[in-house]
C-alpha cells in the first residue's frame, strides 16, 4: 500500500464516522457505557487495594524480647528490620521505660497504682513492625523468632490471612470483570460496525474487483472504530473524573486522608483511568471493526 493510499484510508475512516452519524452515536454510547462501568471497577479495585494495603499495615507485629536480653541481641534485630526493606515498611523499638509510660497512659486516672512499679525488672524491650504486604507476615515472623534474644512474636494471624485472601479476590474480581466487559463491548461494537460495513458491502466488493488489498479495505473501518473508541474513552474518563471527584469530596470531607480507610483522590487515579479507557476503547473499536469487515472482504 502506497503512503498516499494509506492516508486516503485514514481520511476515509474519519469520513465514515460522519457518513452514518446515528450509527456512530450509537457505537460511542455503547462503548461509553461499557467504559464507564470499567472505570467504576478500576476505581473500586484501586480503592479496595489501597485500603487493604493500609489495613494490612495497621495490625503490626509485636516482638517481645527476653527480660535479660543483651544489647547485641537487640542490635541484631534492629539491623535485620532496617535491612529488610522489601518486607518491612516501618518498625519502632520501645524501651521498658517507654512501654511503662505507654501502659500508664492507657490506664489514665488509675495510673497511680503503677507508681512504684520496677519496669526494668518486669517489662521487656519491644518492637512494633509494620509490613509492606500482609502476606509477608509468615516469613518475617519466622525470621524474628529465630533470633536468640526474642521471647515472643505476636501477630494478628487471622486478620493477615483474611487480608491476603481478600486482596487476591479483589484482583481476580477486577481482572474477571474487565475481561467480561471487554468481551461484551467487543460483541456490541462489532455488531454496530457490521451495520456500517453492510451499508458499504457493494463498495467493498467493487474495491476487491479493482484490486484493493484486504488491508486497504479494512483500514478505514479500523480507523473509524478506533476513533469511536477513543472518543468514548475520553467521554468516559471525563464523566468518571467529575463524578468521582464529587463522591470523594462528599465522603472524605471529615476523614483524615492518612487514615487507613481513606480512599484515593481522583488526581492519583486519573492517569490510570484515562490510559485503561483509551487503550480499551481504541482496542475494542479497532478490533471489533476489523472483525466485522472480515466477512465482507472475502470476494
Amino acid at each position, binding site marked *: 500500500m502506497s503512503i498516499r493510499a494509506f492516508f*486516503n484510508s485514514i481520511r476515509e475512516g474519519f469520513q465514515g464516522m460522519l457518513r452514518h452519524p446515528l450509527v456512530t452515536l450509537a457505537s460511542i454510547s455503547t462503548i461509553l457505557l461499557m467504559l464507564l462501568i470499567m472505570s467504576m471497577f478500576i476505581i473500586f479495585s484501586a480503592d479496595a487495594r489501597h485500603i487493604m494495603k493500609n489495613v494490612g499495615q495497621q495490625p503490626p507485629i509485636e516482638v517481645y524480647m527476653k527480660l535479660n536480653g543483651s544489647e547485641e541481641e537487640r542490635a541484631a534485630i534492629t539491623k535485620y528490620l532496617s535491612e529488610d526493606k522489601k518486607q518491612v515498611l516501618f518498625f519502632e523499638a520501645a524501651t521498658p521505660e517507654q512501654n511503662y509510660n505507654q501502659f500508664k497512659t492507657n490506664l489514665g486516672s488509675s495510673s497511680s497504682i503503677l507508681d512504684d512499679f520496677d519496669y526494668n525488672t518486669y517489662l521487656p524491650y519491644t518492637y512494633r513492625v509494620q509490613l509492606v504486604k500482609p502476606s509477608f507476615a509468615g516469613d518475617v515472623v519466622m525470621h524474628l523468632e529465630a533470633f536468640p534474644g526474642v521471647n515472643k512474636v505476636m501477630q494478628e494471624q487471622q486478620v493477615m490471612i483474611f487480608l491476603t485472601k481478600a486482596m487476591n479476590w479483589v484482583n481476580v474480581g477486577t481482572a474477571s470483570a474487565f475481561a467480561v466487559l471487554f468481551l461484551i463491548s467487543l460483541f456490541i461494537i462489532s455488531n454496530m460496525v457490521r451495520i456500517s460495513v453492510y451499508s458499504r458491502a457493494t463498495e467493498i466488493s467493487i474495491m476487491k474487483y479493482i484490486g484493493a488489498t484486504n488491508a486497504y479495505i479494512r483500514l478505514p473501518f479500523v480507523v473509524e472504530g478506533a476513533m469511536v473508541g477513543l472518543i468514548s474513552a475520553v467521554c468516559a474518563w471525563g464523566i468518571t473524573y467529575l463524578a468521582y471527584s464529587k463522591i470523594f469530596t462528599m465522603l472524605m470531607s471529615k476523614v483524615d486522608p492518612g487514615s487507613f480507610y481513606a480512599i484515593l483522590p481522583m488526581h492519583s487515579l486519573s492517569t490510570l483511568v484515562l490510559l485503561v479507557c483509551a487503550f480499551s476503547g481504541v482496542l475494542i473499536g479497532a478490533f471489533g471493526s476489523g472483525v466485522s469487515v472480515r466477512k465482507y472482504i472475502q470476494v
Partner: protein
Amino acid sequence: MIRFDNVHKTYKTGTDALRGVSFKVEDGEFLFIIGKSGSGKSTIIKLITREEKPTQGFVFVDRFPISKMQRSLIPVLRRHIGMIFQDFRLIESKNVFENIAFAGELVGMPRKKLIQTVDIVLSVVGLRNKAAAMPQELSGGEQQRVAIARAMVNDPKLILADEPTGNLDPQTSESIMALLEEINRNGTTVVICTHDSNLVDRMKKRVIEIEAGRIIRDDMDSGYTVCAVAPHAEGGKS
C-alpha cells in the same frame, strides 16, 4: 494471456459448473464467451479473476497460476485486469473522477500522473465534461463508459466484461462495443461474456460457446449461432 487446461469446477452445492474446459486466448485477442444462463460463463470469469479456484485442471492469466496462487497475490492479479460489469458497479459516494482515480490510487500512481491519466481516459470515453458528476446523475450508457474508463486507467493487458450491454439500449450498446473494439485495437485483450446476439453477430470476432460446463464451439470470426458464421470464417479453432 489466458490458458485453461482441462478445467473442472464443482461448487460446494455439488453443481458441476465446468467439465473439462480447455482454451487459450492470445495477447491482443477479442473474444466473446456465449451460452445460456447457468452454462458456466460466469464461472470462467470468476476463475480468471480468482474469485473461485478450479476443482481440477490449471488456469493461467498473464503468467499468474490461478490454481496455486497465494491469496496475497489476488489484488495484484486484479490490478492487471480491467473489469466491466452489467450493473456498472460504480461507487455512489464518489464522483466520476474519484471513481476512476481510485483504481490508480490502488497501484500507487503519483498524483500528477493520475490526474493526467484520468483526464485522458475520460476523453477516450467521451466524458471529460462529466468528471465532477456523481454516478446517479449519469445515464446507463454514461455510467458504463465511466466503468470502462476505470478499467482502462491502469493500462491493463486484459479487459473482462460480464454482460457489459445487458442494461443498455441497442444504440448505446453499439457505442460501448465500439469503444471496447477501439481499446482492443490498441493491443488490450478483451474478453466479453454476453447474451447480446446482435452484437456478436455484427462484430464477427472469436466466439466460445459454453453449454452445461463444456465448450461446444470455439470459432474465429463467428456469430452468436453457427448459422450466423460467415463463409470466410470456417477456419475456427475447434
